[in-house]
């Protein structure tokens, strides 16, 4: 199966390991992975801030970049969730409408792709450590992927999973919200970090880099020694 990797700008810049892990996991389960080089950002930072016209410039580039892909798979519920919004945003645009729908239909978040498309629940990874998982808001509520990440984590040999209290609460990232409403966002991430500490976990795992930068940055600021890992990092230990 041919799969195009949608790296997301955050992973491209801040955590190239997430991309490497995603490629290796997909290859391990039999996919052939390519990387369309002209991809940029899904447009979410501008879209969520109200700059729809500016956001659409980036969105059009994404549609061009993945025009010839069979499947588009990315390590982010939020960014893939954004691609899924394209058809609504280009509904009245005769030039881009069909392309938007095509991209949305063939795009998947990586755990969603593994479990729902490929039917893989065990990627053969082994990981020793106490893990707690933060289900990001856009992964669960916008994209609607609720079970796939946990299904995969439960099959990781040796992993000790512990539930994060109030896990469904937002960590306070929210893209530009973290900067624009810094004070409120700060209170939200403090609360999330406190819940992570309560679990006594060694690793905080999530499927969205934005949340992980946020929670990880806060834990680090507080001098807490919890490691932050993208879910693909855990799934690629073998």
């Amino acid at each position: 199966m041919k799969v195009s990797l949608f790296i997301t700008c955050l992973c491209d810049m801040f955590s190239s390991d997430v991309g490497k892990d995603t490629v290796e996991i997909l290859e391990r389960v039999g996919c052939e992975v390519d990387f369309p080089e002209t991809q940029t950002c899904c447009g979410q930072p501008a879209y969520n801030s109200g700059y729809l016209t500016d956001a659409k410039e980036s969105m059009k580039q994404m549609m061009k970049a993945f025009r010839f892909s069979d499947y588009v798979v990315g390590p982010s519920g939020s960014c893939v969730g954004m691609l899924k919004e394209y058809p609504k945003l280009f509904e009245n645009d005769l030039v881009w409408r069909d392309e938007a729908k095509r991209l949305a239909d063939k795009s998947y978040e990586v755990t969603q792709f593994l479990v729902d498309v490929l039917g893989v629940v065990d990627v053969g990874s082994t990981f020793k450590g106490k893990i707690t998982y933060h289900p990001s808001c856009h992964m669960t509520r916008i994209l609607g992927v609720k079970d796939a990440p946990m299904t995969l984590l439960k099959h990781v040999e040796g992993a000790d999973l512990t539930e994060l209290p109030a896990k469904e609460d937002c960590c306070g990232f929210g893209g530009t919200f973290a900067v624009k409403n810094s004070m409120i966002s700060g209170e939200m991430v403090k609360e999330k970090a406190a819940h992570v500490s309560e679990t006594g976990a060694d690793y905080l795992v999530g499927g969205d880099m934005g949340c992980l930068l946020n929670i990880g940055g806060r834990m680090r600021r507080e001098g807490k020694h919890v490691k932050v890992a993208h879910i693909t990092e855990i799934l690629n230990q073998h």
Partner: protein
Amino acid sequence: MSIKLGDASYEERVQEGVQNEFMRQAVASAQGRFRSGKQKQADKLGNWEDWRTLGEEIRTHTLENIDYYLQLLSDNVSKRGGNVFFAQTAEEANDYIQHVIKEKNAQKVVKSKSMVTEEIGMNEALEEVGADVVESDLGEWILQLDEDPPSHIVAPAVHKNKEQVKETFTEKKGYNQSSQPEELASFAREQLRQEFLSADVGITGCNFAVAESGAVTLVTNEGNARMATTIPDTQISVMGMERVVPTYEELDILVSLLTRAAVGQDLTSYVTSITGTRLEGETDGPEDYHLVIVDNGRSKILGTEFQSALHCIRCAACINVCPVYRHVGGHAYGSVYPGPIGAVLTPLLDGYEDHKELPYASSLCGACTEACPVKIPLHEQLIRHREIIVEQEKMTPRSERLAMKGFAKWGSSPAAYKMSTAMARSAMKPWTKDETVANGPGPLKGWTVNRDFPAPAKQTFRSWFKERQKGGES
């Protein structure tokens, strides 16, 4: 009061909220209770999503035919001897109610809880004509004594705890017992009983008005709406024009959704329906009945992309799950309607000028949309508000507009994108120490004031992938 509360700026209100540890604890624990109560009810029903769909369908149908249903409601209230007044504005509504009060030469008005009367500032208008207005909902009564506005649409005094209530009662009403909730409530009950007995006019809001019968229905746990609608001879109900439901069948479904979503109850202790005046041969009902149907900006929302905001049944489920609300409290919104629904509704009813920050007071986590029993896409409407603020109202700062223009160029040019990601690490170098930015420049300050920012990776993914393609594993 009107929709806008006070003159403090958004930043001041947020700061005040965040610094009020007392209030935040009270709000957080109330949110916890409401949320788990609602969840239990949803689990008990088993098909909560089907109920939501039904709720949404009923509200959509009603709003799309609101002219018909309001006419039917009005005809049926009139048939039952009531007077119906359509008020286009808050002023028109208040003028009409003032007129009734003056005509009756009423000294005392007793009220049950109503958000729409807060919205139009009715209490102040009635005080202007010399009436003594007494709130009879316990929370509202506490706030009235304390001259404090509500901070939640179902639990108006959620920001106060029992010690504060005791203080208020002691100071304003000579209370001399403990802060035990039972003692506080029994004191309030004694005091309020006197108010009910001596009131000339009873004023209520309206949870739902049934078009087929003209029945204005109220949902309470304290029974105060029943007292306010049975003792005084003159009754006034004030309703937002969207509160209409077609028949008792839809009322049944919406009340079921409301009590479950709001407070996690199968049903509230009292569901009171009032239909017009005491007609010949009947043993109860008021001598005079008035139904005031308030538009106050609502009809402008009809037919727009925000129409579904009028589906709201004022259950506050969105408020109870909102993490922003939890940390800042209701007063930070500066509106009688706080929380996610307040952030959507307030700019629609009262304009962007005074409320342009509200649509941004959300991380867009979508918890509100998921919680809404009538499926209002609240977080999507917040984004739409942002688009209007940016693209039509042009209210955002120039620096931000330029940055977003830059984003558009960056995102639409693979070459510029590739170059900037490759250079990000060296560009951030002056602020980087131990792979961490602890004190970032420009807008990044907003981030680093609360948490560290990572240094961009040594190698971008795309350069790794290219190398790997060229010659084996890296």
